[in-house]
């Protein structure tokens, strides 16, 4: 009888395939991306970019093995919990929290360029500039831990930012907050290094790598912005006694539609349906739009610029030849200098040609920001009166929503008061009026139909 057996070749193929699968399956560790838009903005060469990347690696480590100098003010243990690949242990302690919960939208580098980013509206936040929208600190300041925690815990309604209240326990939320700060600080330091390279280093000078420069000169001032956030809280006076009354709402309404005071109708529209200015960008999209326009123009003119460099060189060499006052030695030296300059220009253009398409691929199509439809009763930064007060007081950082203007005209203050008393009265009135606007904004979803402040009738259909 013929013996049938599986040939050894079969097992070799099987084991080989599995080995190959492991090889393919074991993807390289993720890396932090360079902020190419900033590199382009400050005209940073490849060599200088490498210097910056080295400095950042020394200061912050890698996504799998993060490092934080004590001067950063960040908690290393919390960051270790949030960083690295996703795992959990026997006790249910999760590590790699950022990759588990955040990186698919916000990206490994916190650049808002995770895999899902293109589908989300608004785009996920890019932490690297240090601009955060919903917080209790003054407009340009960093948010407090509590601000970030609140967003993580409750999410942002109407967006893809989830609420993690159910999924995460307090230490995990704290770890993620710390990691967001870490990514933001890293991004801010990167921008600062690029700025200093561009503005403070001389020709051919390399970025210093001393701890004094990197830690004391660059990291500390940026870290200070984060560590001082708790001291930069917006001043909040208690709401006036008539808060919630029809009189307060009416006062808020008149301020809301007054183009010389709050001027809210400019963006939120005369209907408050968010149909005012519809062609403005937030700061992130504005930067991308400007970068793309500039990059397109640069790429389109590269051949022309190369030709011009060659032409300038030829003209200069010709002029050099015609200059009878120069000795042969001087002529030779000047020609060498011209050749060096031309080579440097061509090298720079070559780097642009290589970098810009990659940098463009790292951006998403810019989108206009949509002013909030205030009649929906959905407030992304929180629905508490205090949250709305914060938005009115300091605006929304990184967006066209401005901090409130002066709501008190000089003529409204009694002339017989001293300057100090006037300032106090002005402050008190300003606060009261901001609360009036809060009152009106919170009443908008319930405002009966009919004529609005700007005498524009509102369709019931649009009220939702």
């Amino acid at each position, binding site marked *: 009888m013929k013996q049938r057996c599986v040939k050894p070749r079969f097992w070799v193929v*099987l084991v080989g395939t*599995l080995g190959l*699968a*492991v090889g*393919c*399956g*074991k*993807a390289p560790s*993720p*890396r932090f991306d360079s902020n190419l838009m900033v590199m382009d903005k400050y005209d940073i060469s490849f060599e200088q970019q490498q210097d910056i990347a080295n400095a950042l690696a020394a200061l912050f480590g890698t996504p799998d093995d993060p490092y934080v100098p004590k001067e950063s003010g960040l908690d290393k243990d919390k960051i270790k919990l949030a960083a690295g*690949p*996703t*795992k*959990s*242990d*026997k*006790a*249910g302690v*999760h590590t790699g929290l950022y*990759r*588990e*919960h955040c*990186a*698919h939208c916000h*990206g*490994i580098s916190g650049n808002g*360029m*995770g*895999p*899902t*980013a*293109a*589908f*989300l*509206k608004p785009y996920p936040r890019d932490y690297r500039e240090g601009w955060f929208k919903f917080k209790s600190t003054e407009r340009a300041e960093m948010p407090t831990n509590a601000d970030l925690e609140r967003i993580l815990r*409750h*999410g*942002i*309604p*109407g*967006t*893809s*930012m*989830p*609420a*993690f*209240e*159910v*999924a*995460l326990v307090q230490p995990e939320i704290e770890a993620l907050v710390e990691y967001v700060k870490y990514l933001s600080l890293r991004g801010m330091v990167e921008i600062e290094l690029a700025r200093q390279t561009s503005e403070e280093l001389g020709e051919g000078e390399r970025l210093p790598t001393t701890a004094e420069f990197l830690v004391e000169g660059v990291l500390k001032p940026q870290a200070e912005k984060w560590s001082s956030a708790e001291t930069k809280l917006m001043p909040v006076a208690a709401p006036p006694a008539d808060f919630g009354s029809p009189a307060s709402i009416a006062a808020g309404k008149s301020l809301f539609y007054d183009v010389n005071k709050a001027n809210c109708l400019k963006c939120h529209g005369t209907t408050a349906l968010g149909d005012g200015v519809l062609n403005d960008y937030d700061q992130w999209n504005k930067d991308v739009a400007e970068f793309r326009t500039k990059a397109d123009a640069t790429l389109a003119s590269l051949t022309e610029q190369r030709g011009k460099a060659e032409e300038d060189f030829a003209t200069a060499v010709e002029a050099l030849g015609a200059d009878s006052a120069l000795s042969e030695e001087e002529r030779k030296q000047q020609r060498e200098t011209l050749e060096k300059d031309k080579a440097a220009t061509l090298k720079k253009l070559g780097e642009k040609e290589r970098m810009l398409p990659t940098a463009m*691929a*790292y951006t*998403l199509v810019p989108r206009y920001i949509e002013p909030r*439809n205030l009649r*929906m*009763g*959905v407030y992304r930064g929180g629905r508490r009166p205090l949250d709305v007060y914060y938005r009115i007081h300091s605006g929304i950082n990184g967006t066209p929503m401005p901090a409130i203007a002066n709501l008190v005209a000089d003529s409204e203050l009694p002339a017989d008061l001293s300057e100090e008393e006037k300032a106090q009265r002005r402050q008190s009135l300003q606060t009261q009026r901001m609360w009036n606007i809060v009152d009106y904004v919170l009443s908008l979803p319930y405002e009966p139909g009919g004529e609005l402040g700007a005498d524009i009738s509102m369709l019931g259909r649009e009220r*939702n």
Partner: protein
Amino acid sequence: MTAPPLDHSCSPWPHRLAVLLCCATFPLLWVGGLVTTYDAGMAVPDWPNTYGYNLFLYPLETWVGGPFDLFVEHGHRLLGAAVGVLAIGFCVTTLATRCPAWWRWAAAGALLLVIVQGLMGGLRVLFDARALAQFHGCFGPLFFGACVALAAVTSTGWRSWPVQEAKGAGGLRRLALFTAVLAYVQIVLGSELRHVRTDAGPRWFQTFVLFHLLVAAALVVHVALLSARVWRGGFRSSKLTRPVTLVAVLLFAQLCLGGATWVTNYGWPDWFKDFFPAASYVVQAKGWMQANLTTAHMALGSLIWGLALLVALRAGRLYQPRATHSVQPTRALGAAA
């Protein structure tokens, strides 16, 4: 003296075990989906042991009373082991009972598939290789399809059904096969969305979402055509109409689940945001709805693939194209030579 009548029947046990294998594999796929949903793939860092214990001896109270990730991952391993034991049982049954020889080879093939699948799962853990987890996730439905095929071909009916010649049978077989292939391709595309690398760029994910939607549309068209062909094209056998109708119903449910999966993971698409429930909707990370709808979407995809494969197999078994009897035209008398 006359010999007793020849018995050509096969033992019913291989078929019973094949059906049991299908029934055990589907929950295994579901739990495997939960492992991905909860990112629990690395909840147990060793393999084949569980935290140093033999897989089967891991203390029950630590498993059931432990963290959910550990519960899901260890449960997935136990279910996988059970399916492996069933596959061995199936193999042994085909060897021990009277059945066609090729069943034995098919059973050995199924056992090999489950061994490879188990090894892939183990290596995924040992090497912490996320892409390998994706291969593992795609291979599972392939094994499920093999189980469905085994259950189909080992049934009594499979051997007794008469083959019918029918016009358009070739088209039906091709359509059914292509539908099954599409269903599997859709699983592979979906797996890329589930296992996407966190450092992959948005374009990568965008491309796969686009293809996932395109294949979904193609699948809808193919299932509609297949249903129409079965119901109205002269192939109205209950052996086909039932699974085809079930595929159509499940596909509809799958489309709804797909939409729900998107909404519970990423919120409502922008064009819904002027409507109140969408405008105020907050995505609940790893909430009950998100986790279960996403996992159900994955599991239903495998069920559709299995059923589509069953339809394809049955269509091939029941109908064959009508033989064309070519008649040589007789040369007309008197025609010029």
